[in-house]
């Protein structure tokens, strides 16, 4: 009945999520890492919406709205942190940020 089966969306969302994960793991620029995290969140959003449609109720979309709010706040904080780090160290390469270890 649904033109595109929900599972398709879910798998797509899983793939996007995984790409986001890979990005987080292999990128060195925290901004890009952060972008990859946003990618992961969006992947989840996709599955929320798809599931919501599947169940025929609005809840799936509600989650997305909250996730967007969270993402927005997260960006504010995250970029603030990145700026602050850049101020103290003049770099944001996370491979150079390891004063704290062991």
């Amino acid at each position, binding site marked *: 009945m649904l033109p595109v089966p929900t599972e398709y969306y*879910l798998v797509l969302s899983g793939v996007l*999520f995984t790409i*986001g994960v890979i990005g*987080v793991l292999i990128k060195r620029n*925290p901004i890009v*890492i*952060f972008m990859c*995290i946003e990618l*992961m*969140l969006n*992947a*989840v959003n996709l*599955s*929320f919406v798809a*599931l919501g449609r599947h*169940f025929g*109720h609005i*809840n*799936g979309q*509600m*989650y997305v709205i*909250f*996730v967007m709010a*969270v993402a927005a*706040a*997260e960006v504010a*904080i*995250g970029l*603030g*942190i*990145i700026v*602050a*780090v850049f*101020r*103290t*160290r003049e770099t*944001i390469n*996370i491979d150079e*940020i*390891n*004063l*704290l*270890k*062991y």
Partner: protein
Amino acid sequence: MPAIDFSSVSVDTMMLMPVIVLWLTAAAIMLGNTFFWRDKRAWPAIISLVAIVVSALFCFNIRSTYADSMTTAFADSVKVDYVSFMGNIALLVTAFLSVLVAWTYLRNKGLNRSDYYVLLLLSVSGAMLMTDANDLIVLFLGLEILSFALYALVGFSTKEARSEEASIKYFLLGAFASAFLLYGISMVYGVMQSTNLDVIFAKASQMHGFSAMLLAGVGLLLVGLGFKAALIPFHQWTPDVYDGAPTSVTAFMAAAAKIGAFIALLRVFDALSPVKVAWLPAVQILAILSMIFGNILAISQTSLKRLLAYSSIAHAGYLMVAIASLPVSTTGHRLTGLASQSAIFYLFAYVFMTMGAFGVMVYLSPEGKEFQSIKDLKGLSRTNPVAAYGMMFFMLSLGGIPPTMGFMGKWQIFMSAVQNGQIMLSIVMALASVFAVYYYLRVVYMMTFEEPVGASPKAATSCAPVRSVLAISAFATIIFGLAPGWLISLLTVNNPAAK
């Protein structure tokens, strides 16, 4: 369109007053700072303390009103029961002590800004939402409020590279973890069509066989919350962040994040207890890894903050034993067993021990100097016996040695574990706590056995607030160690199943 009925809102708001008070206070402090005192005075701290007390009074009020019944608010998205009550009280105690710690610490560090208290109150409110949450989305939002405020607090000392490093590490990993949590929520939603914990429980109880999506979702929830709780292998941020963050923040986050995360874990996994068979092995593995490696890793630490960080990982492992001991509930009387009681008791113990230990660190950090290394404690008992023996109590309590509160907590977790068949875990826990004692004792012998070297650690200036923290914590550690009955009774009144 159906007519919207707002009549229940005022009652619901009453239920949430403890949190709302904090929100209002945060706003008030911001305004006050802008218009009145401008970071100069102690007002924000005092106002915060008052607000916390008021919030606690609301808690007690709610409790006395709804004494023996569980109730929910805001269309079941918030639960009001003894767990939320105790969780809120624990968090408010944490906040109270944290404000006092910060009062002294921020002065000595030259960080005395009102924003700190705003963020602190907001983050406590987030954690309180986590404890109240009866819906995964509320849980998620609460967790994010807590986390965002903590990211900012960790990086609060903006001129310190260490602080900012800690902040960015915490932030990146935290965001990463919360993405997993969210994915987990979506999977649970995909199976249950709802994220309400009551619904989840009801549906899970009626499920036949396993749903892969549900199980994967449960696993990802465990990851997301396990990160906040600092379980191995999601722990690696902990030492770095504890180390880099301003000490007062470390103290606060150690306790508050743990309370929020574990009460959330309790709620979630209790709701999921019908599928305990599936998640139990994972929980057991995380518990064992955390207990063993948390303690082992702590042994070789030289920085007290890192040591306490690893110890907090180990404590998370102990608490995980309680999670693993959650009974498979069938009656609908949820979170009434020994497992949740013992976990909450332990969280209380952990609050006092941790706040006390960090309090001592703050107490020993005079202006311009920050206490860091365990070696700085050498001979403390000669130069400052009160601080030294106070610290000794916290360490012994963290080590779970009677007659301290830490022992009483550990003992109850043992009981819940044994009662629910987790004997293997209790044995691992017992043996792991031997390793733990090893490094706690190292702190103790540095203070007491060694002679002071060079200039002895001086007390911080304007240390009255932090001294009161030490006094409160030490008192609680001993009193609840000797007579835990009152606290336990608070945990059991609402609790017909437990004897």
